[in-house]
């Protein structure tokens, strides 16, 4: 356990000082700012528009950070050969992988908290400070989804090169995000065999509809029909499967 925590701690430290992270965060604030500017031109509940854009930005940028930092997580160590220094220590590969994953997850957690605080600042400015409490399950859900994306990025990058790994992760993410809606939207409009394929995709790839609760919350439907325990269990199961698969490939890898 100590080895995992040590790797997690220094993975977090190394990443939190990376300028790319700040560039992405800056861009996220820019998008939120742009969204606020748009709210001035729209008719309707400003707080709802801010919530929609804000939560959407948190989700989008957390996912972007997870994909791009996730695929480089192990590759960078192999490319820069820092892995030699690590594996010269009495550490097992699964401990290393778990430590990297937790370090990265901690980074995402802090990033989500940070962006939530920015959003709370906007809610205060627009007269709805209590809104943030309503959205806590949404932030939690985004965090679960992002952890799943990290695990997916780690697996994709352990199978192939960084760029291909990133493309694969993005493709799987998009498919996983729309497969649920796709299945119902296409129902009865496509052939039975095509429908089977869509259904199969839903079961093979992580189904991100389990984490999509922000629309419910923004539009006042609350947690109706949503069970956070199920989402948590689903996320943990998928993460364990993805990381175990990564470990199988990683264990075979020779550090040339």
């Amino acid at each position, binding site marked *: 356990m*100590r*080895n995992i925590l*040590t*790797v997690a701690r*220094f993975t977090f*430290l*190394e990443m939190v*000082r*990376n300028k790319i992270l700040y560039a992405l965060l800056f861009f996220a604030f820019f998008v939120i700012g742009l969204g606020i500017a748009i709210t001035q031109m729209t008719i309707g509940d400003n707080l709802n528009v801010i919530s929609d854009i804000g939560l959407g930005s948190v989700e989008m940028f957390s996912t972007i950070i997870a994909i791009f930092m996730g695929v480089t997580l192990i590759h960078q160590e192999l490319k*820069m*050969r*820092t892995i*030699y*220094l*690590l*594996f*010269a*220590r*009495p*550490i*097992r590969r699964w401990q290393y992988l778990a430590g990297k994953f937790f370090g990265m997850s901690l980074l995402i957690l802090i990033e989500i908290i940070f962006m939530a605080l920015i959003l709370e600042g906007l809610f205060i400015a627009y007269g709805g400070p209590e809104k943030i409490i309503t959205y806590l399950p949404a932030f939690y859900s985004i965090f679960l989804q992002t952890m799943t994306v990290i695990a997916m990025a780690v697996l994709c990058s352990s199978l192939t090169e960084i760029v291909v790994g990133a493309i694969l992760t993005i493709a799987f993410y998009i498919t996983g995000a729309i497969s649920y809606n796709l299945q119902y939207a296409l129902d009865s409009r496509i052939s039975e065999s095509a429908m089977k394929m869509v259904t199969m995709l839903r079961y093979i790839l992580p189904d991100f509809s389990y984490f999509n609760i922000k629309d419910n919350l923004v539009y006042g439907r609350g947690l109706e029909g949503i069970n956070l325990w199920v989402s948590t269990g689903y996320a943990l199961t998928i993460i364990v499967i993805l990381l175990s698969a990564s470990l199988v490939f990683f264990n075979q890898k*020779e*550090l*040339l």
Partner: protein
Amino acid sequence: MDNPIVLQNVSKLFTHPMKIWQKVEAVSNLSITIRKGEITGIVGHNGAGKTTTLKMIMGFIRPTSGTISLFGKEAGSPEALQHIGFLPEHPYFYSHLTAWEILTYFGSLSGMSSKNLATAKERVLKKVGLYNDKDRPLRTFSKGMLQRIGIAQAIIHDPELIILDEPMSGLDPAGRREVKELILELKKQGKSVVLSSHILSDIEILSDRILVLTKGKVESWGTLKEIIPTSSVQWIFSFDVPDSEKDALFAEIKDIKMDGAQLSIVKQSKQEMNETIKDILSRGYDVYSAGPVYPTLEEIVFEKKEVNNA
């Protein structure tokens, strides 16, 4: 405790990068035992198999055949790595971490307690001359400083065996001298050290035993004297002759060399030298010194390369 490193019939085959149906033998049937408290130097030309051998010892890559044990434990196992410090060739570090943090990282992974780690970090940073730079991020370090922090992380946990791949790389003459002194100090403490280097004079000075690898095979293995081919040893004696008689002697004996005021003759065997000394003495001249001249490690390695290429 068991021998630090035992390699038995170790071979490593790689797939040819261009012709995937072909295998390239990087290391072939390597069997050596590295003893406790000794400095072992590994030398060889590029592609000789030095780094591959070290990577197999560390467990980074698996041998295709044969076995490697470290202190009686399987290579690469946490039980074996507990006792080892390793410096890779051209070490890279996490550029956003400081020297102090990197030692905390690797020291913790080696199982050191926080209390031991704090004193050890100070001790090794002072030893490698980086204590005043401990809070600087490693991206601001020069190549020589990175090499020093690489050595610091290799010894932070006071390992029994220290493996250094090209430890002098990137260091200036003063830095090289300090590293050599550090290696000798480690030996004095009873540690075993394995080092590979292209700077053969360093290996020659430091090593108790030398492993010469050529194309993945053991060319020679032993102390410097043991690995010298008998044919490479020359015999030399020096003598003095009055100036007035020098020309006549030069005309008669062709292989006389002049070194300042003294003359010397080099022979290929001891017997030849003794016969020539008798001849010189019989002419009434004084002989000052006589003895063998051993080739340097560089001469040995280059001579072997030429023989192999022939």
